[in-house]
Every structure is written in structure tokens, then in C-alpha cells.
């Protein structure tokens, strides 16, 4: 009998925090906007002899916020530790991190797994550390840019609770959304502001053992995360099927070739010689301070989804789409508040034509200028039948392309799109169509009633979409019946 395998996946997520200054010095943390390499640096973040770290309060605040959002308990007594290893991107020869007492631990995140069933992923710990410098490798040498060195970095470590690539993706996507909701990380994976490491193992389905895992480092996109995990799962299954053993090792992901590559085996694994950072006294967080941070937590995606389902009578999938980004959810609510149309209609417009435009143009919501008020006006014009739905789409695209919004009423006027329920005008169009298409009329009279849809399309075309569909439908039915006998 063929053995089936189940993947076991845990994720480590590295997220840079969005603070003004670096973790341990007052240099700007906005390294991606640095004018040149090695301009946002000082003795502290370049590890000059004698320089000492000073904690960034804002980073502690943001880390606490993330811990709370992931249902963790926040540790009031925090210590920092040195993680010792040599690498040219690590100026001090050690990274200041947290080891025994991370800022947050024992949390969880509820996601939907590959079968759309709820899955609770345990968040083992969230700790603060500093980012490294950036290396660029040239032919015979490498260059180091310390602008990134010392930028606050959060490491979010899950238990190996995911049993499919889809679940891992779902977890990663949700963490990203939460970080963006909290305003502590832009979620930009291309720039490495958010990056993943996947711990992967496989085991016979039904087994509860934890087999040897491999660790895939530096996954810089959701695509890389899913492809690398899927590849690694298949690779391990093949190893077991050939009767082999999976080796514990650290892997890299070759995006171009679509394969994982061994970087170092267990015997070469670093001994980081962790010990308490003597330059930073332990950090004691007051209960009241933690509570004040907690009270500042915004409504998070899950809560917002539930509320949207109740308040706006949306289906789960509809609500989830809108709440996937806080800015989108806010925009939706803004349009709803300014419109007389039902929320469900607003959802259809945003999920439909609006998001299609976003996808086609590749623009982010932030880049689109369409005042909620104008969008609401347009939707209301369709709802009250001033224009047809098709005309509405035309107007919307006009408004979006106008960059500065544009006024829906003016566009309707300019394009002569106003809908008419003048029966004479519609009647005339119908009569013309029926006499031009005797074959279709005959088919109708022979009992093929579905031909009505085609005839309605002809009416819409002839009236340039301005005919009120209900009126047209009624008049068409009447005209057809008149042709019986």
C-alpha cells in the first residue's frame, strides 16, 4: 500500500518595525530612503569600540502591540541577550536579541486551513532584535551598507502547527495583514521589510511524531514561501520513499531554478553563545503601561470581518475580502456612510469593478484618488436608475482614469449616459429591432423564450444603455405578444 504523507510546517517571520529611529541609537531607521549607503550611521550602529546601545521606547511599544494582537502574554520583565557570531553584516560580532525572556509569548492566531476549516496556530514567542547591515557581493569583494544595521526587527515564531502549504500561506498572509493594521510594518516583502523562514518536515499521515525538519531561510514573497515549502515537502517525501533519512539542515531557496539548496548541515550549525546583554539593564514593563497599549489596539481583521457580516449583512468571504486591508475596509465604510445604497451594493462595486481596476492597473489603494463621496454618488445614480449599471461601470472607469476623481454627474452629462424611461423612445427602438430580426421573432413565437435576453441586449445597444431595463423588458414582451397571430 502506498504511504501518504502529511507536511508539518512552522514559520518564523521577521518584520522590521516602523520606528523613526533605530533600535539602539538615534539614526534614522528609514534606510530605504537614505540618500547613499552608509549615511544613516553612527558609532553605535556601526559597532565602533566603546559605543553603547540605548533602547528605543517606540520599538518596545510596537512589539507589545504585536504581542497583544497575537493574543500573547506580555512579559513584564524583559532581558536582552547577545547572539554571538561573526559575519561582515554584523558590526559588533553579536546581535542584540532576546533569548530567555522575550517580550511576548504563548499566543495564537486563528486562520482557515486548506479546507477552509478554522485552525488555531500557536505563536510560541515574539521577540525584539536588531537588523543587520546589507551586503552586496561584487566579483572579488563585497560592500557593506550599515544604513539598515540596527533597525528594529521583530521575530514572530509559530509552533509547527500547519499541515499544508495553504495553511502556512494563510497564516503568513494574516500576520502581514495584522502588522499592517497595527501600522508597525508596511508588509513590503520585496524590500525585505517582511520576510519568512519555513521549518518543514513530513510524516506519515495519521502519525503524531515530529520528524527531522529543515529550515528554509530568507523567503521574500508569498510565492517563494509557497513554492519553497511545496518543493521541500516533495523532496522530503521522495527521500523517505527511497528509504533515506532527511538531514537537519539550513536551506536557501533558488527562485530561478525552483529548488532548495543546502547552506549548512547540523554539524556546522552555529553555537550562538547567548548570554545576557550587559550593556542593557533588564526592562521592566508596568502592568498599567501594557494595559494602555492594549486599549490602543485597533479593530483587527477577524473582529472587523465579524462586524461587517453583522452590520452590513455580508457573507464571510465578502467581508474577508474587504477587511484584508485596513485601508480598503475603511474606504468601504466611508463610501457606505456617504451613500444611500445598500452596503451589499457598495461591496459589489468595490469587489467588482473597483478591484478589477486595481488589479489591472497594479495600483495600490493609496495610489488611487477617488473620494468616497464621489464613488457613493455614482453608486446611488445606478441604484436610483438615473443611469444603468453598465453606464455606471463606464463612469467609474472614467473617474478612476481621471486621477483626480472626476464628478460622476458631469461625466454622465458629457457622455450622454442618463437612463430614459420614455416609453416612446424605447418603443421605437423595439419596433425597429423586431422588424430587423424576423427570424428571432419567429423563434420566440415558436416557444424559444430565452431569445428575449438576446433581444434585450439589442435594445440596450440601440439605446446606448440608456433604456431602463425594466421598462424595456415590459415593452418588449408586449410587442412580441402583439406579433402572435
Amino acid at each position: 500500500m502506498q504511504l501518504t504523507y502529511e507536511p508539518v510546517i512552522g514559520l518564523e517571520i521577521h518584520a522590521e518595525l516602523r520606528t523613526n529611529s533605530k533600535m539602539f541609537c538615534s539614526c534614522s531607521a528609514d534606510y530605504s530612503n537614505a540618500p547613499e549607503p552608509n549615511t544613516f550611521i553612527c558609532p553605535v550602529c556601526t559597532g565602533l569600540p566603546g559605543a553603547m546601545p540605548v533602547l528605543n521606547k517606540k520599538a518596545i511599544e510596537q512589539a507589545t502591540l504585536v504581542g497583544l494582537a497575537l493574543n500573547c502574554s506580555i512579559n513584564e520583565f524583559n532581558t536582552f541577550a547577545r547572539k554571538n557570531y561573526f559575519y561582515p553584516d554584523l558590526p559588533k560580532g553579536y546581535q542584540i536579541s532576546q533569548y530567555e525572556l522575550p517580550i511576548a509569548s504563548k499566543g495564537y492566531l486563528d486562520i482557515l486551513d486548506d479546507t477552509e476549516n478554522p485552525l488555531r496556530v500557536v505563536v510560541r514567542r515574539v521577540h525584539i532584535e536588531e537588523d543587520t547591515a546589507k551586503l552586496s557581493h561584487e566579483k572579488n569583494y563585497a560592500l557593506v551598507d550599515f544604513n539598515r544595521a540596527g533597525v528594529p526587527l521583530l521575530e514572530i515564531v509559530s509552533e509547527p502547527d500547519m499541515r499544508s502549504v495553504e495553511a502556512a500561506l494563510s497564516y503568513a498572509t494574516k500576520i502581514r495583514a495584522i502588522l499592517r493594521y497595527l501600522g508597525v510594518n508596511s508588509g513590503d516583502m520585496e524590500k525585505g521589510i517582511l520576510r519568512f523562514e519555513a521549518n518543514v518536515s513530513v510524516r506519515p499521515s495519521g502519525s503524531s511524531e515530529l520528524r527531522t525538519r529543515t529550515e528554509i531561510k530568507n523567503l521574500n514573497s508569498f510565492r517563494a514561501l509557497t513554492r519553497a515549502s511545496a518543493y521541500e515537502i516533495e523532496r522530503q517525501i521522495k527521500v523517505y520513499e527511497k528509504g533515506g533519512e532527511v538531514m537537519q539542515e539550513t536551506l536557501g531557496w533558488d527562485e530561478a531554478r525552483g529548488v532548495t539548496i543546502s547552506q549548512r548541515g547540523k554539524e556546522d550549525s552555529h553555537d550562538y553563545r547567548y548570554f545576557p546583554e550587559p550593556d542593557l539593564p533588564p526592562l521592566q514593563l508596568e502592568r498599567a503601561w501594557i494595559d494602555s497599549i492594549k486599549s490602543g489596539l485597533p479593530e483587527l481583521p477577524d473582529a472587523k470581518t465579524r462586524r461587517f457580516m453583522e452590520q452590513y449583512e455580508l457573507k464571510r468571504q465578502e467581508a474577508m475580502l474587504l477587511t484584508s486591508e485596513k485601508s480598503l475596509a475603511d474606504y468601504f465604510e466611508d463610501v457606505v456612510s456617504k451613500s444611500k445604497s445598500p452596503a451589499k451594493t457598495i461591496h459589489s462595486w468595490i469587489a467588482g469593478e473597483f478591484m478589477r481596476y486595481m488589479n489591472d492597473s497594479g495600483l495600490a489603494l493609496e495610489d488611487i484618488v477617488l473620494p468616497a463621496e464621489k464613488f457613493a454618488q455614482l453608486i446611488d445614480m445606478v441604484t436610483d436608475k438615473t443611469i444603468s449599471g453598465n453606464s455606471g461601470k463606464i463612469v467609474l472607469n472614467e473617474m478612476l482614469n481621471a486621477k483626480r476623481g472626476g464628478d460622476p454627474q458631469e461625466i454622465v452629462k458629457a457622455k450622454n449616459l442618463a437612463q430614459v424611461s420614455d416609453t416612446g423612445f424605447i418603443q421605437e427602438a423595439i419596433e425597429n429591432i423586431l422588424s430587423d430580426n424576423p427570424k428571432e421573432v419567429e423563434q420566440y413565437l415558436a416557444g424559444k423564450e430565452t431569445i428575449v435576453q438576446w433581444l434585450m441586449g439589442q435594445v440596450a445597444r440601440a439605446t446606448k444603455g440608456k433604456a431602463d431595463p425594466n421598462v424595456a423588458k415590459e415593452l418588449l414582451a408586449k410587442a412580441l405578444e402583439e406579433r402572435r397571430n
Partner: protein
Amino acid sequence: MQLPNLTIREASDLLATKKISSVELTHATLQRAHEIDPKIKSYVTITDDLAIEQAKKADERIAKGENVTPLTGIPFAAKDCISTRNIRTTCSSKILEDYVPQYNATVINKLADAGAVLMGKTNMDEFGMGSSCENSAFFNTHNPWDLERVPGGSSGGSAAAMSASLCSFSLGEDTGGSVRMPAGFCNVTGIKPTYGRVSRYGLISLVSSFDCIGPMSRDVYDCATVLETIAGHDPQDSTTFNSPVPRYTQHVTKSVKGMTIGIPKEYFVSGMEAGVESSIQEAIRTYEKLGMKIQEVSLPNTKYALPVYYLLLFAEASSNLARFDGTRFGLSVSENAKDVIDIYLQTRHKGFGDEVKRRIMLGAYALSAGYYDAYYLKAQKVRTLLRRDFETALASCDILLAPTCPTTAFKLGEKTSDPLEMYLSDIYVVATNPAGVPALALPAGFSNNMPVGMQLIGKHLDEQTLFQVGHAYQQETDWHKQLPNI
């Protein structure tokens, strides 16, 4: 009048009354340094032009009567592990032989603000690892009282320069006796303040949790003057105390009558040089005459102090010294290097001396997975016991009194072949650093014509009492006024 022999207070009075100028004082001191130091070799770098420039500015300040402090116009030397902007700072190591910091240590800024005049940087055991200054990668420093002997370490250059009047005060750094032990060997006064009392920002770390910058001077009053200038909270050093700095000098003359001195019995055991012991007993009698009560106390964990101190030192130092990797500053050796690991290996092989390598290896070992609990963690636990020893002993008395070293200065080369023997010379001074308490070293007589050092150990942040008790002793004795014949 020999200008370089003046105390800070004497010089400051003469400057204030314009009997001398800072340029005269600085010039005379520089001249003496150029004359005498070739024999002593206390300085690694002398900054003549800069010193004269600073002295001129100090004279302007005094002339205008603006911001004049007791240190305005006073020339000083700093141990070469304290960063000085645009002045090379070597830690007496080849790996930093040409390293020129871009910034000043906080203490250097504070002294500059006070108008003190930096004369140069002094020799030390490489990165502070040693007790005789013989681990300097550059040259040995000689004891001004006997050129055949060591000045002590690791702040041997600062002690010798002070002793030979090659500066009006100096800055040392005490990780486990590195101010007090050489102060004792060279007949100068020096303090290891409470850990966290003086900013370490810009001090090239040996052991981050032990290191304390402390002044060395002719007498207790001067020492108090410098400490009250350099002490205090520094936003750039998170381990500094936020509590205000007392005006130590205003209280040094207070009577010590009725106060209690504790004598730790564990420090008075066999192995102490007879002349050292008799000098210390004599000092105790002096205090009795001043109306102080003497009582025996116990520091029961003393026997663990040395292993705990060295173990924690190795561990922290192995990490603190990781940044010397040849990629950003200092020595970089990359001949035929295949990869970056090669650069690290070659640079560190050539750049570090044997003692430094020995300690890095021991420290990396002690922190390794599987050994951490048995070594580092255990040592930290015993460290807590050492701290409690001092708390308990000091609960029943105001200060403790002990020698700074079981012997007087030993001969150059005498202990270099046996690291353990060298480590043992720190036996009386190391325990205070893991405990964090302050200790003042001061001259207490002579044994075979070599100075004997005594230390007073105080409660946390109670430098005040140390200065008071130390000053009282110097009012009754003139050991501190004895100058080497050089």
C-alpha cells in the same frame, strides 16, 4: 616651585589667582613628560600641540572668569582605552595601533567642558588584560619608584604618569582592580567608583558589567574633585545611575569619629608580605586614634571571588572583542585571504596578544552550549553571593579596609611566564567589581622602599564616605606626599 608636582587644588588656586597660567603648567608638565617618560614609558601618545591649544583656551576662560571649574587648565592623561576624538586610542593593542576614534567618550567630553587639558594617552595591559602592564603590545611601563619593577596593571601607565608627576591627574579604568592595584604599586590615590556612577560610553569595553572609569591623583581631595566632574547619569549609557552626584569635596573634611571600619578577616591570611601587613596594621591604628571603631567582619565567599571574576571576564570579553574583525577599523590583514573568515583569522591572529587570545578562547568555551550552565550561569549565581557578602559586612560598619595587593610591586618579568600567579596578585581587588561597590585606594606606607597600597571599600553609591575616611587618613599621614626620586 615644581609645577608638575602640584596637586590639582594647589594648581587651581595658583591659576585662579593668576600666579601661573595653564599654558605654563601644561608646558612644564609636557616638558617633564618628554624628559622623564623615556625611562618610565607611561604614555603611548602625547598630544603636545593639542594640550597647549586647550591650555590657551583654559587661560582665556580664567581671564574672562567664565565657566571656571577646579579642573580648568589642569593637565591630565587618560588610559588608552578611553575614546578620544581624532586622537588614536589603542588599548595598547596592535589591532588598534592606528585606530582614531570619531567621537569622544562621555568622560572626555565632561572634562573638556570643565576646561581640563588632555596631555595624552597612557599605556595599559592590552585591552586591560593584565596586572603589570607587561601585556601591552607596545612596551613595558616602569615603576617610577624602581625602574626594574612593574607599575601594576592594567592602568599601569596612568598610575606611573601620576606617580612621576607627568600629569596633574589621570583617568584609569578598573575592571577588577585595574585602578587600585597600580595606584598601590605607584603610591597614588585612585578610586573605583560604584558600577554605573561614571558613564562608560566611549570606554572600550573589557567586561561591560564590571568596567568603571576612575580617577588617579596625588591625594583624596583631588580624586573627589575629578570624580564629581565625571560622574553622573549619561543618556548614552543605560547602565548609569540617575541619582544626583554629591559635591564630594564639600564633605571630605567631616569628622570620622565614631564611624566603624570593618576588617575582612579573609583578607588577612598567610601569603601577605610582612611589610604590607605591618603598614595596614599601622593604618588601622591611625584610624583608632581618630576615634573610629574597628571590627572584624567576614566576606565568606572571598575564595570564589577570583574564579568568578575571571570566568565572567573571559565570557564577556570574548564577546566584547568580537568587533575587532578587520572589516571596519583598526588592523586588517587580508594577504591571500580566500574568504572573509580568512580575514578574521589573520587579523585577529596578528592583532591580539597571547593573553587576549587565551581569554577569548576560555570565554567562548565557557559560553558554549552545554557548558553555559556549569560555568557562566554558576558564576553569575556566585556573583550574587559576593554582592551579598559586601551588603552583609557593610550593614554593620561604614567601610571596609584591606590592602590592595598582598605584595608591593614585583619585578618586570617575574610573573609573565605564569598567568595564574599573575591573576593571584588581584586577589584583594577583584571581588568589588562583581559586587559593584566602590573602593578607594590610597598610599599607606612603604615596604622595602616600595609603596604599600590600602583600599577602603564602601556601600553602593557611597563614595562620599570613602573620600571622607580617606581624607582623614591623609590629614594624619604624608605617605601620599612622597614622590619617587626620578
